[in-house]
């Protein structure tokens, strides 16, 4: 916290409690606590970049099997069929249900990629101390946080189908390993977004000279 920009709480050796919003004065490096609610106080999220990187890398690692492995298996009348996300989209598209295909494609393939890309670009820009368009970058971060919770559509569909379609030999739906990995991608990207501290974007640009 060497080059703190003037006019920020950090420059004034103050920090806002994340939980109750009380502004407290910080003293030294010791682990400070909020005098009102007892939560840990820190000017910036500790090790934000490192943790975000870890989550993003883990999400990338899970993204491959999530798309390559079948996400669910539909057994109807003795004939089993395992579908990956992409083959499901393809199935919907070839059967003329392109609006549904678009929804599934957006929610299951486009959004995770978008999130990972945004997070990686934010991390890189912060580490390179870039001051390029901090407002837009912050908006991108907010977008990532906002859509995170909507990426679980696939998992919801699979769980509902598994629970509902239990007709014995007539039709059965089973979840396959792909669903686990897909869920992991969603959770990990949400965690990554959570652990990233957007104030870091502004720290750099303001240090440059406002």
């Amino acid at each position, binding site marked *: 916290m060497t080059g703190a920009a003037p006019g920020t709480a950090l420059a004034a050796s103050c920090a806002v409690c994340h939980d109750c919003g009380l502004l407290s004065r910080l003293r030294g490096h010791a682990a400070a606590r909020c005098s009102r609610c007892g939560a840990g106080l820190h000017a910036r999220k500790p*090790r934000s970049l490192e943790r975000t990187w*870890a989550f993003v890398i*883990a999400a990338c*690692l*899970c993204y491959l*099997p999530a798309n390559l492995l079948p996400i669910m298996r539909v057994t109807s009348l003795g004939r089993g069929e395992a579908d990956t996300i992409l083959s499901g989209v393809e199935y919907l598209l070839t059967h003329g249900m392109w609006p549904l295909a678009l929804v599934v494609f957006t929610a299951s393939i486009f959004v995770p990629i978008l999130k990972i890309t945004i997070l990686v670009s934010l991390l890189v820009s912060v580490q390179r101390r870039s001051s390029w368009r901090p407002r837009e970058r912050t908006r991108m971060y907010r977008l990532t946080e906002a859509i995170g919770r909507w990426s679980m559509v696939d998992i919801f569909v699979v769980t509902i189908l598994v629970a509902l379609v239990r007709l014995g030999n007539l039709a059965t739906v089973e979840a396959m390993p792909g669903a686990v*990995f897909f869920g992991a991608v969603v959770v990990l990207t949400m965690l990554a977004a959570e*652990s990233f501290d957007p104030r870091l974007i502004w720290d750099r640009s303001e240090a440059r000279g406002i």
Partner: protein
Amino acid sequence: MTPEDFDRSSVTEAVVSTRTRPSIVWLIPLVAALVGGFVAWRTYSQLGPLIELDFESAEGLEAGKTEIKYKDVDVGVVETIRLKADLSGVVCTARMVKGAEDYLRDGTRFWVVRARVAGGQVSGLGTLFSGAYIGVDPVREGKRMRQFHGLEVPPIVTSDQPGRTFVLHSHRAGSIDVGTPVFFRKIRVGEVVSSELDPSDEFVTVQVFVHAPHDLRVHRDTRFWNASGVHVSMNSQGVEVNVESAVSLLIGGIAFETPIGESSEPAAEEGSPFELYANRDATEREVYTIKSYYQLYFDQSVRGLNIGAPVEFRGIQIGEVRDVKLEFDAKTGQFRVPVLVGIEPERIGNLGGADPAARRTALERLVQLGLRAQLASGNLLTGQLLVELDMHPGSPPAQMVWSEPYAQFPTIPTSLEEITSSVTRLAKQLGNLPFEQIASSVDETLKTARAALAQADRTMAAATALVGPDSPANSELRQTLLELSDAARSIGLAADQIQRQPNSLIFGKEANQ
């Protein structure tokens, strides 16, 4: 002392360690990498060999969905389907499960399982709902292969079924087709596996598979016959209708049986050849394995002598006519008819049996004793002829001619022909008689006879005059007869006297009596 008085410069700076341990959060990507790596490794390690299958059509097959199953266990899945370059069929690439390499040999067969009705059986009904799949018959021996030619119809017998295959030869396939059932005592024990023409075009080769344990019932002397349809036979006991089973009535069938009392023969080996008889009667008839062929030369018409006509000896069939030809002998300028007959010498007891040399000697001896062949009428209505062998001790001497390829057997003309020829001979001799001379001498004789008769007439007239009613001889004869009558009476009286008084013969007649 207030904090403001504290001289900061006099205190040494604490060393702040900038080295920090990596955060525990890095465990998460580490675990993700491990799990992902494990899944990738497992998926990759479970990939089996990629094989190519040729089919005539891809009916019911879907890339990425159609499974390859063995005993209803998935052993692979079709990945791609494409047309062959020459458009003659389709090529499917299929990913087999790990471990499938062991049974991908050159004998392994693949076929598409669809719902079908064949051989009296309905199979693959389940595929109506679940879609077609590819069946496999794994084989553990042979060369390892990656490319296979798919069968269009499922094999009747897969390699895991216990039993044995036998080869049947028949002149006609009849209604036998792949899947035709094989019966033993009217119980279904097997199926026809293949039915094809022999390369020589002379007979049909039928392969049958008999399931265990019934395959042990096939012995070396077992006879197979075509049990297709209805067999109607008529004999002195009436009409007999025989049907092997309702199934065989519709789709044909093959039955087999081992002659009673001979089943001590060992069980037949895999692939043993058998003859397929036309019907059950034929199996009982044709029990003779040895056939010897003889050429018979006839100089007469053989109208009514068909191929297959019986060769009989005193009414017992011992063979049949195999061929009838016509031959021109350039040397003598005559036509003659060579008739090829097949004789089953085993039908005749004590005729040398199976030993050809002994048969030859016996036959030569019989010919010396008068054994001859002749044509005989088998059926007066239709004029069918048959060849009859019999002993003709009086016939002109002849011999067997042991020529190649067939031995020649001596013949004599037909009985009818013999009569005709003797009548002709008689007529010829009659024609040679000197009828004119005979006529003139007869004339002379008649004249003489007429004179003789006149003489006789005269003699008779003289005789009449001599002994007529008014002739002296006649009256004298009457006188004599009267006297003879008197004499007889006197003798009668005398006899009475002697009977009453026998002594009167000596003492004379007594007066007082």
